[in-house]
């Protein structure tokens, strides 16, 4: 008999968005039972790896209109303008709460919170805690959450299915990694906060856990994934490992230089104008690829790269503002940035797309909410500005927590028998997969083939032919995945089983990415086509929706909310 537990709401994911949602729910009703289901202990969540900062208007010379305009322009006018306005207005409040909860924000001499420059932002509005902002925010949130004993944590529980009864979400089925037991965790609303899916690519800043789980669960439950074609390449990752070197390096004055020592972002026309190194990520990543293609890259054992040069900042500033960059560079590439430039190349970092959510973090499926990278609230459109995403986790995490609680208030529990049966079916599926000997291929083969095809079809520069080819290959990989062989039949901490379930999720997400990309016949933001170099507002100023269908994905469209800023040519 499967174990069933009941809560008021269920949150899946324990990073910044999930924890913020849990705290918001507690603030509304300290007596409510909040389930927090996470496949890792919350402080291992990938929020921990964010480095540079979180954006919110703080200075006298700044205002919501400026933050909003920077964001909509960064989005290449695909951001929903009502969502952007809501976001910029909520942002200072959320970062202030983090301050009250102990986040060690770096300070000005007078004790006020310090802010730094970031790409595409027209003034210093990025709050920071040296260059370990995600780490400090995550631990502040997690430690603050420990004071609420009504948050019931399901640590190392891997949610594998949304449980729906009568057209309303009522909970999740989750595999207890430690025991192999599948539990039915019920709540009258569910919030997805599981992050992105960078691991569908071979070269990514993302940690091993970023496998698109929440996107896949919602997709299979019939919710659209929105704008999945937009994959953000961060300009500065370490060759080989893909480890992130923060944009704060450039915010603090770092240069990007080619093999000739030239600051090409300042000297050549890459559309970033006088912003140079402080241009938006999509443009800088393209510029680096073009420099390499023009023969001005440097060859290394892990491909070609250019340099990020911080030497002129001096040791004192590097130690004070960018200590982690120095530590990472020394450990992972053997370079001390005080004395040598850091080899860097564009690396998959963030997904602008995700579960289609509205301004309230709600999805089209009653009872299901989503926040953070897993969601696409259309704050970021086709290109996110650096330091908007940590704030996004807070603003929409809080909103999801509040709105899910309000929904739960008016919702019923559904049929426990029906939900239990669904859970039992899911448990049977997982048991059948565990140690599945029949079949041929190893999981690692499928993963490496997925990586190859995603990089070749959905990289920085794309063509119709390559995207179509990737969509076809992903469909074939689904067939091969159905026939995998697994070696590990243990019930206890079976990481091969987890990886197999994650692979299923990654294939769903990859399908949505490739097919959405192949359908957008223009270049906008991070979706850049060699064969169609221009933006086409006449025909493509819409959000792409991708729906799951066993026969292959179905695509749809959704209007972009305009009204405040007129779309214009994006030049800096």
């Amino acid at each position, binding site marked *: 008999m499967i174990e069933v537990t009941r809560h008021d709401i269920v949150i899946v994911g324990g990073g910044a968005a999930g924890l913020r949602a849990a705290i918001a729910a507690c603030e509304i009703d300290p007596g409510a039972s909040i389930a927090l289901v996470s496949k890792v202990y919350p402080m291992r*969540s990938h929020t921990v790896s964010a480095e540079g900062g979180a954006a919110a208007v703080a200075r006298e010379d700044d205002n919501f209109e400026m933050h909003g305009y920077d964001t909509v322009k960064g989005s290449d006018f695909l951001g929903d303008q009502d969502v952007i306005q809501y976001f910029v207005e909520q942002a200072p409040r959320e970062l202030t709460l983090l301050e009250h909860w102990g986040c060690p924000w770096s300070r000005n001499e007078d004790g006020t919170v310090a802010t730094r420059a970031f790409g595409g932002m027209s003034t210093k509005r990025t709050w920071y805690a040296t260059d370990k902002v995600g*780490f400090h925010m995550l631990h502040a949130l997690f430690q603050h959450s420990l004071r609420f004993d009504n948050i019931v944590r399901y640590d190392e529980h891997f949610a594998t299915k949304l449980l729906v009864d009568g057209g309303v979400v009522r909970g999740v089925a989750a595999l207890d990694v430690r025991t192999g037991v599948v539990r039915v965790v019920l709540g009258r609303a569910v919030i997805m906060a599981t992050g992105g899916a960078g691991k569908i690519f071979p070269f990514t800043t993302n940690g091993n856990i970023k496998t698109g789980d929440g996107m896949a669960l919602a997709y299979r439950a019939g919710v659209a994934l929105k704008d999945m074609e937009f994959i953000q390449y961060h300009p500065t990752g370490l060759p080989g490992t893909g480890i992130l070197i923060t944009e704060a390096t450039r915010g603090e004055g770092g240069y990007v230089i080619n093999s000739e020592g030239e600051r090409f972002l300042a000297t050549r026309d890459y559309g970033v104008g006088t912003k140079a190194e402080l241009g938006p990520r999509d443009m800088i990543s393209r510029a680096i690829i073009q420099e390499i293609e023009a023969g001005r890259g440097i060859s290394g054992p892990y491909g070609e790269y250019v340099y990020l040069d911080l030497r002129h900042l001096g040791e004192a500033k590097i130690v004070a503002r960018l200590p982690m960059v120095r530590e990472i560079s020394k450990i992972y590439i053997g370079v001390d940035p005080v004395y040598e430039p850091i080899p860097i190349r564009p690396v998959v970092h963030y997904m602008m797309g995700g579960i289609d959510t509205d301004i309230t973090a709600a999805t089209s499926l009653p009872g299901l909410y989503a926040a953070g990278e897993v969601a696409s609230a259309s704050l970021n459109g086709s290109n996110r500005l650096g330091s908007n995403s940590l704030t996004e986790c807070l603003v929409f995490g809080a909103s999801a927590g509040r709105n899910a609680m309000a929904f739960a208030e008016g919702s019923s529990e559904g049929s426990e028998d029906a939900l239990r049966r669904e859970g039992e079916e899911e448990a049977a599926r997982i048991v059948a997969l565990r140690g599945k000997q029949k079949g041929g291929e190893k999981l690692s083969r499928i993963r490496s083939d997925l990586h190859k095809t995603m990089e070749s079809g959905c990289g920085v520069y794309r063509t119709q032919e390559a995207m179509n080819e990737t969509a076809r290959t992903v469909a074939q990989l689904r067939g091969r995945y159905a026939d995998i062989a697994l070696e590990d039949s243990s019930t206890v901490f079976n990481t091969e089983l987890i990886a197999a379930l994650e692979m299923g999720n990654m294939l769903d997400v990859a399908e949505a990415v490739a097919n959405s990309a192949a359908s957008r016949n223009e270049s906008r933001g991070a979706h850049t086509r060699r064969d169609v170099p221009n933006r086409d507002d006449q025909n493509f100023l819409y959000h792409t929706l991708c729906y799951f269908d066993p026969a292959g994905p179905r695509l749809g469209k959704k209007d972009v909310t305009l009204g405040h800023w007129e779309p214009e040519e994006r030049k800096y």
Partner: protein
Amino acid sequence: MSDGQQKKTFVITRFDPDRDDAPRKQAYEIPVHPDWKVLDALNFIKDEIDATLSHRWSCRMAVCGSCGMMVDGEPRLTCKEALSQYGDTVDVAPLANFPVVRDLVIEADGFMEKLTHVKPWIIRAKELAVEEGPMRQSPAELEEFKQFSMCINCMLCYSACPVVANEPEFIGPAAIALGHRYSLDSRDEGAADRNEIFRGEGTVFSCSFANECSEVCPKHVDPAAAVNQAKLNAVIDWATSLVLPRGGDK
């Protein structure tokens, strides 16, 4: 793999409670890359040789705290340690002083309870309203606690601690450092609460000052210093309370 490539043998502690009565050692000889960390070798074994090997990892940049293990008998973050510093045979075992779930995976719930016990959050007599805006904190005030806020909860210090080895209920270096971190924060008013906790059994006064915790800390948090300071504060606070029964708060 070219013929000239270097090889190393990894002797890994295996234990699956579904099958094994006791932990056993299993050796894997694999080709290694000069740039690899210890974790890369484990992932190679998992992907290419033995998919049943279980270990935790995620960020592979020494900040998520998942991948702590005993490497040649010392607690280490495996994503941080260069393989080149080890010999032809490398011994990898689960973190010492924790119950083992399976293979290289240890039970961390005990640590989570210890962490919660020290109240690692801002305590204030009266909660601030968000409308009041951020509190002021000078760079010097920030510096007071900053180092202790760098703990990534990797638990290497528990593996190194001789007190934890003998007294598993000892609340341990990381939890004390994090509790103390909040007591040092100019925004916090909970030092008296935590001093009370730290005067309890199995906390700061159990520490024998072996300093092993600070030596293995991959983030240079120096938990031994935190324990030392917390001990002093707990005593001063207690002494003050004898003289001024309602005093002792800052």
